[in-house]
């Protein structure tokens, strides 16, 4: 029984033998994207989980050309790699960056904005595990409201992180980027198709993929894919694209699954009170009101 999506991507493995945690969502995102882009992909990864687990001389886990950038410099190094290869006459390659949420929304946002502004021909993929996981679970700009991290402890005074996620997808879109998309490793076909689509477009492409970290989220290693699906199903994440000035929703759940169930099965949200969950549910509803009004289906 042939799987069409499996047939449409390389059978090779380009990210292999790495030291990521068992069940790592980030590594699934990187692995899948490289199988789409093939051996002529040139990957740039900043300091973060994927580079830390994949590039420890002499254990080098990428079989395609790959390089680590400075933490803030993913997009700027990508720009340089692309310009350099083009200057040398190469035409058949894809410059792709894999940065975490910290490396994208916080320290890396300036360089990303610059790259989009220049419309450099690169794919920038943010694997979002919702905290600085490589350094042991600290809050980032993409840590959701209420999450317990080591720098936003959940005590009786403050219940974890008090700020919402920065909307990087819409920030990228606000640049009028040629293509931006949200994705989840729980919906891997959708992610694969978006990477395929991005690889066919000229200019800067931004894909934001939710990639759960079982260690940091406080779930069992075999829960990664299920929880990545559930975050979409309960409406706290949405699958959408931005192209040619238009927002398009790819997946509209007929009925959202229970937000409380999604939150409470994760160690980082166990402390949430009913009031906290109400705030989360209300903000989800407000966002979906906006989506339903402004996104095409």
């Amino acid at each position, binding site marked *: 029984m042939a799987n069409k999506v499996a047939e449409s991507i390389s059978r090779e493995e380009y990210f292999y033998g790495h030291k990521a945690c068992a069940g790592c969502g980030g590594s699934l995102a990187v692995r899948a994207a490289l199988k789409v882009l093939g051996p002529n992909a*040139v990957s740039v990864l900043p300091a973060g989980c994927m580079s830390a687990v994949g590039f420890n*001389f002499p254990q080098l886990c990428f079989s395609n050309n790959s390089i*680590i950038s400075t933490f*803030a*410099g993913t997009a700027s190094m990508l720009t340089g790699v692309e310009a350099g290869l083009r200057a040398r006459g190469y035409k058949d390659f894809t410059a792709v960056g894999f940065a975490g949420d910290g490396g994208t929304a916080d320290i890396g946002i*300036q360089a990303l904005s610059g790259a989009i502004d220049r419309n450099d021909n690169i794919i920038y993929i943010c694997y979002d595990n919702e905290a600085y996981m490589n350094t042991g679970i600290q809050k980032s700009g993409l840590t959701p409201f209420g999450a317990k991290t080591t720098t936003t402890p959940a005590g009786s005074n403050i219940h974890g992180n008090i700020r919402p996620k920065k909307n990087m997808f819409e920030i990228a879109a606000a640049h009028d980027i040629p293509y931006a998309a949200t994705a989840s490793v729980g919906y891997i076909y959708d992610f694969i198709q978006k990477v395929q689509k991005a690889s066919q477009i000229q200019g800067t492409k931004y894909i934001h993929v939710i990639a759960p970290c079982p260690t940091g989220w406080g779930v069992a290693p075999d829960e990664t894919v299920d929880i990545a699906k559930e975050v979409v199903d309960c409406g706290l994440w949405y699958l959408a694209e931005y192209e040619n000035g238009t927002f398009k929703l790819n997946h509209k759940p007929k009925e959202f699954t229970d937000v409380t169930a999604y939150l409470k099965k994760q160690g980082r949200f166990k402390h949430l009170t009913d009031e906290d969950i109400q705030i989360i549910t209300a903000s989800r509803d407000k966002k979906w009101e906006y989506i339903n009004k402004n996104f095409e289906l």
Partner: protein
Amino acid sequence: MSRKFLSGNEAFAEGIRLARPQVISAYPITPQTIVVERLSEMVEDGSLKAEYVHVESEHSALSCAIGASAAGARAFTATSSQGLLYMAECLYYAAGGRFPIVMMNADRSTALPWNIYGDQRDSLSQLDSGWIQSYAENAQEALDLALMSYKIAEDKRVQTPYMANLDGFVLTHTYETVDIPTHEQADKFLPSYVTDNRIDFENPKNMAFSAGPDTNYIFKYKEHKGLLAAAEVIGETEKEFAEIFGRHYTGLTENYRTEDAEYIIVTLGSIAGLCRETADKLRENGVKAGVVRIRYMRPFPNKEIADVLRNVRAYAVLEKDISFGNEGTVFTNVNSALKKAGIDVKGYNFIGGLGGRNISAADIENIYKSIAKGTESVNFIGIGGEDNGK
């Protein structure tokens, strides 16, 4: 070859044009901006074929250059002062990755307080980063160093990035007549960049990786040796340069009337001219004065410094920087060279020109007089008069 009346910045830009960089990352900062402006004009009129990238910060400027170099392309960028410090992380990155990028740095004071004028605190504070560092005295040398820089940096024995320093405003913005070589001459001197330290689709690489305690020190040692090897390569390059372009340079240092000198000023950059004039004046009055202009602070000319200062009665290091809480960095380096060679000669540090403050002929004459009499170890020019700080 043509002759043009150019500023230091413009002359440097001409040198870079002749070196055929493939990727230029540009961000403005006074007093370097003219370089990237001229390069953009050259790209526009077709006299320079390069990918010109408008980066959004200095950190991105060098990060982009590193990416381009990792792709196997010849990369260039320019900066100064605050920008140099902003990209400081990338300086160490480029050097450790052995990417032979060339960067022009307009030597400028660093905040606080804010100051756009020339001193040497920015580049001297980054001596540890692993870059070759040259200090030009005039526009012709700036142009020539721009051409030589890639040849030295890309040499297989070196593979180290090169920072070409020009004194802010006093060199970047002053004009002189320069000889501009032809592309034919330049191409004969400088071939294309060839390396295996690059992205390769036939033999893919993993680059800029981590190395743990068991191997890290080996990488660092090799990086150190590479920079040291530049000394010999600089000599060879200058010899070849003289054969093709007819201009001679003297290696890591340039000595003036030092053979029998009893009192020598050691300095960097464009102030050396005034030092030589002052030395000439003192010679007329029977004082055996000499001047050493350090052209390269890295690799440091330990041997040359030891040889030239061995028999003096006293020397002064005149520099435009201070390592707060101690002394000027050039002074530290010079003293260490002497100590390593077992030479015990009286030396004095003169800190001048900070924030673009003028250093006069009288100041320099004063230096020679002070070291003959004996004075404090570390002296700030302009501080120490009756109503002036002491």
